[in-house]
């Protein structure tokens, strides 16, 4: 019945707007007369939705005779089902097919990256179970407290943000009280970061050999907690995490805080964490920290700078993003470097995204890896590449 009412309302608007087609204007010109067409009005709610994208990407190695180092089709299908106003299911299924390499990759070709059941228990609490992604911290570029989900690091610095984080089987209980949200998280799965595999241009056996990465034998007793407060002009979050260190078989405990404050056009961000590597006597406990500032006073643009001390190494990240043509063209530049004066190495990435229409977009960019004392960047320094992709959203 509601849909019928809605339809008749839309029709009446359509008729009315056609009647207005030849409106005049007052004595100050510039205002247009026009026919306004209502293209579609979505129903106010759906119980089931399916959407996503198909993406074809090519990476060209700027060294090595400009070989095509990757020619990949990715599919990302999202489904949402709302059983009633309190119970929802969501899933994200991914598929990758790379035609150009002989990578012996044992990571999921078909990957159920997210599959969650969300239940609103009452007005003050929610429960979410399933493979999910939980992002911690305030930083946009350097991960200090964002440790719950591992990453897809198969092509460092290039992976699309939607493909970057790996979902993980978790139970999450949220309580809401005034300005505060309290979350308890229990891990049921250890899922570590994906690294370059044999056959990949980025593969280095000293760094990425399976022999040196150990998986956990069990997943007992890993949990996390956060308390997040949102206030006028500022947010603060406290974290505690007991979990495996990525790609190792020992655990760490992290106690952390993240804070951000907005002053005029500036957003100030900070994170501080104490990591107690209590299960590994060979690794000292470490304090990681991050300070960042983002300036949004540029029309349709932003500039951010972050500096961090992570694992006793100084890390810098500078990002500039600018939109053009009513946000159909986005151009971004990211420079990330390690140690003082970038002596540890790093990378510079310049890329653009152009929306041809609501369904099709083109992305293109360059990434330069800077060699340095950091063994990772020294290892991948000859992998500078040009990347481009075309994406169809449905």
């Amino acid at each position, binding site marked *: 019945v509601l849909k019928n009412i809605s339809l008749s*309302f*839309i029709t009446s*608007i359509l008729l*009315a*707007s056609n*009647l*207005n*087609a*030849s*409106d*005049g*204007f*007052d*004595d*100050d010109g*510039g*205002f*247009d007369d*026009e026919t*306004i067409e*209502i*293209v*579609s*009005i*979505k129903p*106010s709610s759906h119980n089931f*939705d399916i959407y*996503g*994208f198909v993406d074809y990407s090519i990476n060209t190695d700027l060294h090595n005779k400009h070989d095509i180092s990757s020619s990949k089709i990715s599919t990302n299908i999202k489904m949402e089902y709302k059983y009633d106003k309190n119970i*929802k299911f969501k899933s994200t299924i991914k598929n990758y097919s790379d035609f150009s390499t002989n990578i012996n990759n044992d990571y999921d070709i078909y990957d159920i990256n997210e599959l969650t059941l969300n239940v609103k228990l009452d*007005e003050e609490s*929610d429960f979410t179970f399933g493979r999910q992604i939980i*992002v911690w911290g305030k930083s946009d570029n350097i991960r200090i407290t964002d440790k719950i989900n591992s990453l897809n690091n198969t092509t460092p610095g290039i992976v699309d*943000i*939607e493909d970057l*984080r790996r979902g993980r089987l978790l139970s999450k209980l*949220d309580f*809401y009280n005034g300005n505060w*949200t309290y979350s308890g998280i229990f891990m049921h799965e250890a899922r570590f970061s994906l690294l370059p595999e044999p056959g990949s241009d980025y593969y280095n056996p000293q760094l990425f050999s399976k022999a040196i990465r150990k998986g956990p034998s069990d997943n007992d007793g890993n949990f996390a907690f956060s308390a997040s407060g*949102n206030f*006028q*002009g500022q*947010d603060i979050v406290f974290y505690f995490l007991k979990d495996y260190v990525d790609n190792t078989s020992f655990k760490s405990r992290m106690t952390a805080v993240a804070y951000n404050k*907005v002053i*005029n*056009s500036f*957003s100030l961000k900070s994170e501080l964490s104490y990591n107690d590597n209590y299960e590994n006597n060979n690794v000292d406990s470490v304090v990681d920290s991050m300070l960042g500032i983002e300036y*949004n*006073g540029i*029309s*349709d*643009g932003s500039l951010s700078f972050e500096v961090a001390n992570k694992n006793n190494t100084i890390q810098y990240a500078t990002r500039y993003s600018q*939109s053009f043509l*009513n*946000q*159909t063209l986005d151009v971004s530049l990211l420079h990330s470097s390690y140690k003082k004066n970038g002596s540890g190495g790093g990378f510079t990435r310049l890329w653009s995204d152009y929306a041809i*229409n*609501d*369904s099709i977009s083109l992305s293109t960019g360059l990434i330069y890896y800077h060699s340095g004392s950091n063994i990772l960047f020294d290892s991948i320094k000859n992998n500078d590449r040009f990347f481009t992709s075309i994406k169809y*959203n449905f």
Partner: protein
Amino acid sequence: MIKFKKFILALTIASISSSLLFAESGLSIMKKVLDRDDGDNIIANMQMQLIDKKGHKRIRDMKTYSKDYGNDEKKVIFFLSPSDVRNTAFLTFDYADDSKDDDQWLFLPALKKTKRIPSSDKDSSFMGSDFTYGDMVDPNLDDYTFKVIKESYVKRKSGKNKVWVIERTPINQDVIDETGYIKSIAYVRQDNYMITRAKHFLKKSGRVKYMDVKKIQQIDGIDTAIITTATTKKGRRTLHKTILINSDIKMNQDLKDNLFTIRTIEKGI
């Protein structure tokens, strides 16, 4: 020479008296515009049609909820389509107290993250449209001077409406930089204190933005904008246009306070 002096004197007197002719000052009218009952506890569907200079069209469908808290307003906007922005959500607390910056958060589903957005970023485009973030909230009247230029009529096929034509001038460069507008001309209807048209002179290279409320409908006795256009022009040339269409507007709904929270923008409705 004497004749010329008399002419100047007459012109001066005429210009002074013309500003005294209007029964209400520009500021007083603009206060009434802001104080006008525009409904409370509102749910609406919103469609934005973004049209470039070649006529290519992009469509954004949204659902909006808003609630007044005294003179403050809380609003949440969910993006329904297209699919690449689906589930993006925007939460804003618009404070009447000018000493407090508005709070704004944006949930980005691709990042799985809620970002706090500085509210002073008013001149950036709202989701690629010709409307800016500043257009989505009430202006701070202390940041401007207002002058009634004249009384006129806005004529449409559906009838003509008597309006005050009011010039709005920012008090300093900071306000210009924040909003992106050098000066604005507002056409305020005398029968209901609605801005029916506005002309904004942009800081950006001689551009002018024309905002036009094309269709108004009474909902629960309140005059409500149904179709609004914003057209950015340089000279007579249209650079970009946005058509904003509200539909399924429901007022005086029982909207709970916990709708206007980060929980809601992250979990959806």
